[in-house]
């Protein structure tokens, strides 16, 4: 727990804080990385803990919809690839919890907040994976949207988060190719397979667009995050980049975008029709199709595993005691 001790907020006068804050902002403006032992404003620390832990929770809850198909994957090759991918997501979660711990939070308290329903995770994982094509769409679009969000985070002002993102993005881009390849195989397959692919796109498209968060006028966190160089692009900018990258890919697959109002403007941007922000609000409020299932699956794993974690702790303590006793002899 040394990170906590090192990061305990130092006592200081308000005047001193103002000096530190301006020095901090100058470093951020100069594109320097802020490291765990550096002074940082309490609000910066709080924002990062919130964002990094939400990101970690998303990776962990995100294991569930894809995990739903590991035992039913249609070939041994697909089964191995999917299992490896879900394992990667778990690794990202661990990595991110570790990044949050450099800010003085503990993994246990962060996980407890998620299990209590007090911390958020990405809204997208509250939708069900109904067919195999959903695994293709998740890789192609959900991971594609995640990459779009995370590439700028590789330059985030907070060093441990930025470095974590570099590694995560590399793996995510592999996941995206895996997803697109599943889609390509389906679209080149039987009519039934192609219909499965189109149905999956229809169901996931709008929820994927919501992954970028509310429209810019309605976003609560952007201003401070932008000043601190945690966030480099607005929600709407990233959403537009994603759509522009995705539409030609869908065309190549021979799939129809499930948005009758989608048109290309004079600058070449694909403009989308209205997003149902009420649906987004409802999913965040706990009313998505799978919110209850996801939380109860995580709670069950945590509760069922309690005796195992207790046993590991008890054994470690016994062993340490025995070693002490032996050393004393």
């Amino acid at each position: 727990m040394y990170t906590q001790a090192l990061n305990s907020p130092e006592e200081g006068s308000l005047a001193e804080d103002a000096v530190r804050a301006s020095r901090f902002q100058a470093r951020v403006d100069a594109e320097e990385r802020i490291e765990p032992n550096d002074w940082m404003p309490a609000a910066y620390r709080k924002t990062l803990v919130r964002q990094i832990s939400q990101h970690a929770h998303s990776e962990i809850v995100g294991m569930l919809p894809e995990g739903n198909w590991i035992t039913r994957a249609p070939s041994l090759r697909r089964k191995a690839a999917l299992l490896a991918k879900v394992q990667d997501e778990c690794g990202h979660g661990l990595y991110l919890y570790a990044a949050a711990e450099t800010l003085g939070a503990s993994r246990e308290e962060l996980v407890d907040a998620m299990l209590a329903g007090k911390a958020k995770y990405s809204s997208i994982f509250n939708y069900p994976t109904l067919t195999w094509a959903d695994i293709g769409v998740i890789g192609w679009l959900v991971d594609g949207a995640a990459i779009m969000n995370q590439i700028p985070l590789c330059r985030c002002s907070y060093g441990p988060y930025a470095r974590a993102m570099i590694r995560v993005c590399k793996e995510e881009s592999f996941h995206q190719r895996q997803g697109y390849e599943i889609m390509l195989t389906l679209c080149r397959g039987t009519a039934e397979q192609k219909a499965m692919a189109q149905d999956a796109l229809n169901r996931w498209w709008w929820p994927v667009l919501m992954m970028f968060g509310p429209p810019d006028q309605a976003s609560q966190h952007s201003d401070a995050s932008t000043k601190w160089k945690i966030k480099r692009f607005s929600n709407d900018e990233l959403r537009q980049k994603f759509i522009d990258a995705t539409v030609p890919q869908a065309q190549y697959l021979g799939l129809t975008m499930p948005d009758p109002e989608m048109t290309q403007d004079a600058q070449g941007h694909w403009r989308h029709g209205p997003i149902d922000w009420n649906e987004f609000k409802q999913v965040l409020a706990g009313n998505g199709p799978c919110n209850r299932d996801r939380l109860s699956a995580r709670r069950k794993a945590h509760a069922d595993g309690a005796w195992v974690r207790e046993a590991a702790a008890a054994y470690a303590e016994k062993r340490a005691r025995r070693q002490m006793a032996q050393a004393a002899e």
Partner: protein
Amino acid sequence: MTAPSITVSETPLVLYTLRRADDALILGHRLSEWCGHAPMLEEDMALSNMALDLIGQARELYGYAAKVEGRGHDEDKLAYLRDVRQYRNLLLVERPNGDFAHTMVRQLFYAAFADLYWRGMMGSTDATLAAIAAKSEKECAYHLRHASEWVIRLGDGTDESHRRAQAAVDDLWAYTGEMFSVDGSERGLIDAGIATDPTMLLPEWLSIVSHVAREATLVLPENDWMQQGGRDGRHSEHLGHLLSELQYMQRSFPGATW
């Protein structure tokens, strides 16, 4: 429409290879069921990793069985289009995961055997099997270390973990004997230097498992009645359910490419 099962022409070498492939696939499938539901994230990673090792072993073995059979089957046809009576895995590996203690004790029993077995197979006169053995042995040595450490932790942990670990040992013990049995079909391969004789591995396996049990303060059962049947396709009721999940896509969409 559903895809019908294939018929495999089970020469001794095909049958032999399928048995090992089925062991690896079924245990890999069972371990993969934990993904997202393990007691801690580190174990989600470890169990998935071991599942991946085993599925990888299965793929190589199925590929070789298909090649030896020479009837145009492949790894997926062998995995997805044989029914429960055609599966040749050990009864031990199809046991449901149960609690974490059951999963770890099952893993200990199997990995302690598989590590010794693949080490023996590295000297096989069949070059393909020897190469698969060399890779599998490394993986199973790690699986054994991981399972041993957990069984010791659980056995010597809390009262509850001890009780659960002992119950797992008691429940699974009767499925260990099948690992060491040899039938006529395999005897010929052993005599030809292609297969390792598992009966020779029993003393060392017992010594490894007894050592772990002692460290874990667990008692190995005295009951020496051993269940048999998996190698001949006489399985528990659990395998059919596992296969119906595993094979759902290939059975539901005959002939499709994924």
